[in-house]
């Protein structure tokens, strides 16, 4: 039971990292990034390619891959997403859906649909004694990194000048602009940062999950359900929902294995009935 709960938290760590990126991007740009799953997949493939082609270690990839993806995100924002910024957000949803199909098949044309192997990084291969049970060290590492990143992002948003600007631009873009702050300057970096978070999750997933072109698409749909539950407008809500859903899904799996894949969607239905704006979200204005 405890061990299963731990499994759930590790799964939730991935939900939380992806939901965090989605929420940060949504807050600043009002864009729901469908390609988030594709960037997660690129993160895993980035780590795999760096190791197999150039022998770059996991630890280096953990820094390099998100950095490369951040640049890719900034370029995509400047070239494509910005052009649709003033239109209905649905257009950017469709645009990023198109990008997902392109990225997915680009990778598939080169590597096929089979899963690629990625070894566990040296130093994290064993198990750790956690008191009541022993647990694979790598999974503990994933959970620790995820929690650390989420806390760090929170600290940046809450304590730094950049964080204040981003939060202000999220809440009242017009007012922030009229106070003399160049909101537009922060849009591309924030998008790049969100993409980097997806890439980081991808690198973390490489040693413990199947690395294949479709790994992101299935996950992102579940993450959509997670952020609907948490309330996409709330960064804290999205992260909390990520960990909570991971935990609940794992424990639910223990009692009703048949529901393992559908439980998160059932939870979403319950939340829509009870609090349509999400657990931590605010009611959106009609129109």
């Amino acid at each position, binding site marked *: 039971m405890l061990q299963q709960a731990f499994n759930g938290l590790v799964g939730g760590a991935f939900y939380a990292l992806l939901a965090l990126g989605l929420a940060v991007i949504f807050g600043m740009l*009002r864009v*729901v990034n469908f390609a988030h799953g594709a960037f997660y997949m690129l993160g895993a493939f980035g780590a795999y390619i760096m190791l197999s082609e150039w022998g770059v270690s996991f630890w280096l990839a953990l820094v390099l891959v998100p950095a490369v993806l951040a640049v890719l995100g900034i370029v995509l924002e400047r070239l*494509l997403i910005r*052009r*649709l*910024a*003033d*239109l*209905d*957000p*649905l*257009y950017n*949803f*469709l*645009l990023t*859906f*198109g*990008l*997902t*199909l*392109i*990225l*997915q*098949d*680009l990778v*598939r*044309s080169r590597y096929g649909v089979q899963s690629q192997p990625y070894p566990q990084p040296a130093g994290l291969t064993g198990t750790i004694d956690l008191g009541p049970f022993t647990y694979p060290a790598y999974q503990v590492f994933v959970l620790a990194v995820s929690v650390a990143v989420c806390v760090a992002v929170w600290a940046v948003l809450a304590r730094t000048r950049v964080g204040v600007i981003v939060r202000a631009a999220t809440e009242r*873009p017009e007012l922030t602009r009229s106070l003399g702050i160049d909101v537009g300057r922060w849009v591309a970096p924030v998008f790049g940062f969100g993409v980097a978070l997806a890439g980081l999750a991808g690198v973390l997933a490489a040693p413990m999950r199947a690395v294949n072109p479709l790994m992101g*698409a*299935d996950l992102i*749909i*579940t993450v*959509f*359900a997670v*952020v*609907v539950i948490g309330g*996409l407008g709330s960064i804290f809500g999205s992260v909390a929902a990520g960990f909570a859903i991971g935990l609940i899904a794992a424990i639910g799996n223990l009692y009703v294995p*048949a529901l393992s*894949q*559908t439980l998160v*969607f*059932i939870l*979403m*239905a319950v939340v*829509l*009935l009870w609090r*349509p704006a999400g657990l931590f979200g605010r009611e*959106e204005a*009609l*129109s």
Partner: protein
Amino acid sequence: MTRPALASGRRNRLVLLVVGLVAALSLPWLIYPPVALDIACWALFAVAVDLLLGYTGLLSFGHAAFWGGAAYISGLIALNTGLPFPVAVLGGAAGAALLALPIGYLSVRRSGIYFAMVTLAFAQMVYFVVNQWRDVTGGENGLQGIPREFFGLDLSDPFYFYYFALPLILLGLLAAWRIVHSPFGRVLTAIRDNPARARALGYPVDRYKLLVFVLSAALSGLAGGLFAISHGFSSLQEVNWTTSGNVIMMVVLGGIGTLWGSVIGAALVVELNDYLATAGFEEIGLVTGAIFVVMVLLFRKGIWGTARDALRRREARPSGEDPEPDASAEAGTPAAPVERAGR
């Protein structure tokens, strides 16, 4: 609008209708009959999705659940009862409508981008259920050997089957046309353009949205059921999220909020997929993804919308009217429905 303009609009529509009917009847003579069947099914599916996207302003990213759900239900009815295929197809459509009731009820509680995410998530749930429920759905093998029963007639030739399937498709298209051009349809466009005002005028907005969602799902189910019967099998592909994306691409390509555009978009995409598959090109996502990106960035009005606006501008000029396309926009066919300020 002046009287002659009205008459010319009606004449144009009549000409279009005749051209469309002739095209539908001659299609299996012109192209490979199974592809003609696919075009007919996808055209109805695209029109059903456009009822929501173009005329109500709701982007459903989960219509694979209704298309695919009906494909399985129709397949099961045909396999297990041996009833004539139209009964199986209508059963599938009814099943899709029933499935849409709870999904729609929950989804219309959110609007805009959330609606897209919620419908996508529910469709994924349907996908998982179909995948796991192996005893009934066959899991990854899908349903195979679905018969085409019709009072003992031999319908194995797709060329003949096309003409037996076409009435059902035309019935569905007619229903969509009736919905759009009814008072109910006008309320839908009012909800799309200004939900707050529609509510202030006393229209129960959520109930209207739910009703059109269920109707759209039923028409999608009609198309999906027929698709399964015409192929003789139903696979997981039918309930996959890529199917939802595919049909949205048809609508966007043809032109959001134009029923004719959806039909043309469906025909083009099916033809393109067939061409690429025959050419042995496997990375279809590269092409469809690129079409998505280009359409959304450069041609948001789609093929039909762009052509219609160009035509209107040409017609408007000699009579000295305002060349703005919106000034002459007729009932139920707006220029660019979802195009409004984002925040």
